[in-house]
Structures are given as C-alpha cells and as structure tokens.
C-alpha cells in the first residue's frame, strides 16, 4: 500500500492561519479526509458521536472550487447549526459536483472541547495532486 492510503491527514503551518494536507487512495477519500481534518482543527474528532446525518449536494465550476465549497458548507453548518461531523461518505464526485452523507452531532458544550474557530476555506496555496499512490489535497483555512 502506498503512504497516501495509510495516512489520512496532517496539519501544516501558515503564518496567520492554519492548513491541512489530506490523503486518499482515491479522490473521494481525499475529499472526505479533508473534511475530517477540518473538524480536527475545531475539536477532537474522537469525541464526536454519530447522532445525526446530513446529506449534502455541492456544485461548483471546477474541482478546486468544489473542494472550497464542500469545506465551506461544513463550516457553515458548524457556524449556524453547531454541528460537528466526523464521518463522510461521498457517494458521487465529479469535477463539478459532489454528493455526500455526513455524520456527526450538535455541539455539547460540556463534552466537546472546542479548539479553533475556522471561518472559511481559501484558494490560497490550494492543491489537488494525483500521483501513483493516490491523491493529496492541501487547503489553508482562515481562522
């Protein structure tokens, strides 16, 4: 197995903000891991229980925009409905459209330790790379 299959994500440095690198054997897995990495910035994913499900459908003009919109939709749901997600099943993914089932729960203030408030996914240094072993995604977040 290649390293991209074994690894899920890592957090990277950026002066004012914070970034992630997500890996996946296929593009769906890389998009799902990017979402997981996002919630790992906000809280400890292991503390999130699967108590609700949200089905999302995202469209955008190209793949990088789709990635940004996907993550921004999750940030929006956190900001407005206080939902933390920790599992993502991506049913279909093209360059311009994504359909996913997302599992998680609403914040329980006494239970979840909140770390960083993430406000937006950006195009800054955004990268979606394919190599022999799979996919590697880089995103910088505004926090």
């Amino acid at each position: 197995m290649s390293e991209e299959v074994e690894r899920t994500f890592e957090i990277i440095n950026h002066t004012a903000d914070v970034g992630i690198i997500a890996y996946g054997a296929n593009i769906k897995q890389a998009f799902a891991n990017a979402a997981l990495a996002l919630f790992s910035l906000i809280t400890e994913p292991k503390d999130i229980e699967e108590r609700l499900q949200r089905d999302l459908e995202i469209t955008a003009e190209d793949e990088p925009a789709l990635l940004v919109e996907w993550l921004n939709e999750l940030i929006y749901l956190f900001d407005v409905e206080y939902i933390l997600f920790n599992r993502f099943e991506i049913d279909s993914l093209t360059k311009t459209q994504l359909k996913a089932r997302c599992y998680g729960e609403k914040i329980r203030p006494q239970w979840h330790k909140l770390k960083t408030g993430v406000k937006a996914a950006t195009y800054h240094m955004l990268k979606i790379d394919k190599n022999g072993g799979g996919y590697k995604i880089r995103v910088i977040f505004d926090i």
Partner: protein
Amino acid sequence: MSQWEKKLNKIDDYRWEIPKDYKPGMRVPGLIYASEAMLKSILEEQSLEQVANVAFLPGIVQHSLAMPDIHSGYGFPIGGVAATTVKDGVISPGGVGYDINCGVRLLRTNLTEEEVRPKIKELINELFTNVPSGLGSEGKIRITERELDKVMIKGARWAIEHGFGFSEDLEVTEEEGCLDGANPEKISTKAKKRGIPQLGTLGSGNHFLEVQVVSEIYERDIAKVMGIDQVGQVLVLIHTGSRGFGHQVCSDHLRIMEVVVQKKYGISLPDRELACVPINSEEGKDYLAAMACAANYAWTNRQCITHWTRESFVKIMGKSLSELGMKQIYDVAHNIAKMEKYSVNDKDLTLCVHRKGATRAFPAGHKDIPQRYKRVGQPVLIPGDMGRCSYIATGTDKAMRESFGSTCHGAGRAQSRTAARRSLRGAEVARELESRGITVKTGSISSLAEEASQAYKDVTDVVEVAHQAGISRKVAMAVPIGVIKG
C-alpha cells in the same frame, strides 16, 4: 533573503521598492515600509511575492504598498494597501479580507491604575460574562431577519437606537459607523443565517477586549484632545469584526468573481484569491453593496460590545458612567475598501483604497475626520499582542501623499499558530502573563498559546517604522492589565 536582496531597491532606512520589472504583469512597483532588521523576517515568508502580485490589479496607481506589520495572507498580504481608480480599476474582495471591517475601538475612563488594580479580577470576570465570546457562543441579542436588514443599512446607529450607547459615539467612529450604499438584497441567506446569532459577540482567534493603562505619552497636547490626560489612566480596547457574516459575504462574492474575472473581463492574475472585477461592473457594485452591509454589521457589533463594557465598569467600579468618563476615543476599520479622493501626479482622482490589515490615517484638517480631531488628525489605534503594549497615533499629510492615508494596524504575526502551540502551552502563557500583572480570561486555554507575545512581532518596532517613515505619528502607549480572549 539572497534572491530578494538583489531585487529590492533600498530607498531609505524605512522604505524598500520592488521594481516594476520584478515580474512581467506588474503595473506599478511595490513599496514596503520596514527597517533592515524587520525586512529579514519579512523575507522568510512569501509576503513580498504577494505585494508584487497585487501590482497586477488593473487600475492600480502609484504603488502596491506593504505596511511594516506585513505578513503572508491570501492573495493580498496582511498589511497590504492598494488604490485603484474608480473610473477603470477593479475591486478585489481579497484586498478587504474575510473579516470585513475587522477593527478596533478605544474607550477612555477617568479611572487610574490604582483604582482598577484591586478589582481587576472581578472586572475581567464581569466583562467575560457580559460580553459573549468564544467559539460556538451565541449573542444575547435576538433579532429577526428583517431587523438584521436594518443593522446592515444603519450600522452602529441601529445599536444606538436600541439603547446600546450614545450618538456621540458615532461622531468618533470612522464613517460615523455606517458606510453608504449597503443593500441587504445583495446578501445571501447563508450570510444572514450566520449573522443573526453572532451579532454582539467578540468571537475567537485574535479578537479580544483589553483593559489597559497609559504608560507613555509622546504628544501631550494631541493626547489631551483625545481625552488621554495622564500616565496611569485606564483605557479599554475592543478588537473584533463582522464575524461569520463577513466571512460568508467574502466567500460568496469571491466565488462570483472567480467565475467572471477571466471569462467575462479577461483579467489574468497570478493568484486565485486576488479575484476581482471592474468597480463599475454589476458584480463590482454588488460586492461593494454587500461589503457595506458587513462593515455596518461590524460597527454595530463593536457598538453593542462597548455598551456591555460600560455596564460592566459601572457595576464593578460602583460609579456612574459620567463619573467614569467612559467616552469613546475612536473606532477604526482595518479590513475595508473605501472611495477616497487623492492627488496623484497633480491629477485629482477618486480611488478605491483597499486596506487589508491597514489603518486609515487621515491628517489634521481632512474633511472626513470629526470636528473634535480636525486640529490634531485622526486617531490611529494600533494594538499589539496581549503581553506587550498598544499604541495610539495620528494620521499625517505624508500618509496622504505616499500611502493613500494609511498606516500599520498591529504587530503582525511572526510565528504560525501551530508553531506557537508546539512551543508553548496555554496554561503557561496565562501564568506568565499573570506574573507580570496581566489577568487573562479565555474560553479556550489551549488557543491562548497561539496569541502569545512570542508569536508576534514587537508592535513597538512596527509603530516606530511607521513613525520614522512619517505615515503616522505616535501619541501614546498603553499596556494591558486585563484581557478577555474568545
């Protein structure tokens, strides 16, 4: 360093130029305000490349500017200023930033350090309870969508009409707390949904509320006009912006511009985050109308927080507001685009001045500053990190000639958040501050490390460069004795 060393032209001890031929596509040269020592740390990251990239924007005049607190942002550097002609230039949401009208507000008091010190813990606890802050926290204000529309149109005046403060606060707020041209029809449902629960909240990250003590006065007469009378006097500094509302507005409009920038307007840019459209285009007008809504939301936000700050002081200090003398000194935006008039090469031009992490610094006599400050110039508020100090300065004529009436906005990060977290622990940072007489209260002790002094440049160096370069003039310095962090 070496790569840039050959390419930068040193103009004087505080000014460096990126020549226009640094890369093809630059329409104007770059101009960086920095000392030689600061330049070294600036060169360690890619922010100068971003200064060069901003010079690609159609209609940019004179220079792509970088204030001494410059650090790497998205598209635009933080600490970047760019002026484009309204006639044939562009507007770029990246030149404003995600947190539209993030800014600072400074309040004065008649109190002295000796009076406040014994009650500082109580005061900070009260402020922490009274001013909603932190991640996932809801505000105390319950508004409907219709009411939110009014916030967008009226700005800080909405808060005054609802009992949060006084109309004299408006007189000493940039734009009197309301930018013209706001149109709620240009705001997405998503932005409204993010905006409703967060009105009247401090937020998280680098936002804060600080109780400070004046530690030095450099210009006694000017300070006096601002209501800063003596060393030891207590001030309050509030730093927050338009919360999730502004972020959504920025994301929404970046997305729109992304699609049309090349296809419809044929503009080629070196970075996607610089997406822009002509100011006079439909998309440009829509963004400006939406940006004004977010700017007005931010002024309302700071106005509400001002009210709860006053309430907390009255309760803990056991004095009336008039005894406390809690008047507002000023409120400035440091993420915004404004239409302003300048003389460039002897031509009078209306320019769209993008300030991304930069403060307006208008001089004495300027028509757009309040009567009270006509003689001394607009107050410029420059917060440092929570362990060091903050500055109060004023605008200068030189800023009008050289930096489109702009100066620095803060310390500027030197270390990334993750690096700060690795090297420091929040609890240690709190203890260290406590040992130096600074009481800290935060919703997230772990994120305190990200905001530690070590993670920032020293604001004193930043302000000194701006002062020596002549784009702002130091008036006073204040140090924190109590801090609330979201």
